[in-house]
């Protein structure tokens, strides 16, 4: 599973509003991806992992709602034309589509979530350092701290989940020919 992100400089938002719209968009993209994964796993009868991805989508959705409440937005904010610069193809909290496998186990899902939260933490840290507006710096540090908490929570969760055995990918009835 390849989760290596590309790195590129991300321009810092100039205003708090701009920053929070970006943070909101990041959470929404994470919701969409986890939902896609949950749907895909349900279709492949991997229900345990599907439920886990559905739970993660729920968490990210709550984070998006929190941002809306904090900002007093009554409706989702419009995104800027052309979207955002994330420093990669997708937002840092979005797990790359190609990272999943139909036989993956909860441990793998948590590993992907952990990497996503770590990327989000690093993203907000970089923005806090690059921002020139004080309110943006403060908000970025707050969100960085929140993401750091999420990293710890996922680590705690992982400690309760058994690591997969080496042959977890083995399928007695594979969809492809064995070479």
């Amino acid at each position, binding site marked *: 599973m390849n989760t290596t992100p590309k790195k590129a400089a991300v321009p810092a938002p100039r205003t708090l509003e701009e920053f929070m719209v970006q943070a909101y968009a990041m959470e929404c993209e994470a919701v969409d991806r986890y939902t896609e994964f949950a749907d895909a796993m349900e279709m492949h009868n991997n229900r345990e992992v599907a439920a886990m991805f559905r739970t993660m989508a729920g968490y990210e959705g709550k984070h998006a709602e929190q941002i809306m409440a904090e900002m007093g937005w009554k409706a989702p904010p419009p995104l800027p034309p052309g979207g955002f610069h994330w420093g990669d193809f*997708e937002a840092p909290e979005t797990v790359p*589509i190609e990272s999943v496998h139909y036989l993956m186990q909860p441990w793998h899902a948590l590993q992907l979530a952990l990497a996503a939260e770590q990327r989000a933490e690093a993203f907000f840290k970089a923005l806090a350092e690059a921002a020139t507006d004080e309110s943006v710096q403060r908000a970025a540090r707050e969100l960085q701290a929140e993401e750091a908490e999420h990293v710890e929570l996922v680590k705690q969760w992982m400690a309760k989940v058994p690591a997969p055995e080496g042959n977890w990918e083995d399928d007695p009835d594979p969809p492809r020919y064995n070479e």
Partner: protein
Amino acid sequence: MNDVVTPVAVRTAADYKSAYKPIWCPGCGDFTVLSAITKALAALQLPPHEVAVVSGIGCSSRIPAYTTCYGFHGVHGRALAAATGLKVARPDLTVLVTGGDGDGYSIGGNHFMHACRRNVDLTYIVMDNHVYGMTKGQASPTTEPDWDNKLSPGGTGVRAFNPLVVALAAGANFVARGFSGDPNGTADLIAQGIRHPGFSFIEILSPCVTFRPEQRDWKQQVHPATVGPTDDAARAARRIMTDDGMNIGVLYAGERTPYPVSGRQATCDVATLEAEFEL
């Protein structure tokens, strides 16, 4: 004068997704292409009932069922023929055509060339994974000649088809390359393709994680096109033939007049036409 403005509901990408869940392999690039299509339609705020998605056969050809737009899941390789007929009969519709490299370049190769030549206002989105995935991993027209697998030991040895150059030579009016791992960029390409008059061809590199797991590395290989689009087909063709096949963006935006579909009168009514085919 009544100056009360009735608020218009803004459509989001979710409004274009149907309740059917895709059955693609987890990790398939087609998930994000579907997402990009719905984002593009939301960006353009096109009413779903004014959009038709037409496809042939293959994994990616399942897309019409996963949208709330009108859909036509036709026979193998014939999506462009059906879509051309639809657009000519209903020029008011925005017609998208979706499919894979086998459906579009092999079984439907002849339709592909002539759809480019006719320049009917269609947007053709090809999810290219260089393999027939649905039928378990045979080499397709875009498969590398040295791709070694059980079904083609040592590789086919056959030169890979270059769909972008063929599209240019045949007369496509808009040519772009996207990457499924870049869903927002791909959504932008699709929106541009829909807006551009005439036949728009968007080739999207969409990894097959089941039969071509090495394509996960495409994420490290793709890069934005270093130069902007040109309206000079010869220059675009030269660039495409000499690039590494991994640059993404709009590569050609031409100015050919699209095939005229509006203002034409039917020469007979449907009942008369049906009577001619009565057995």
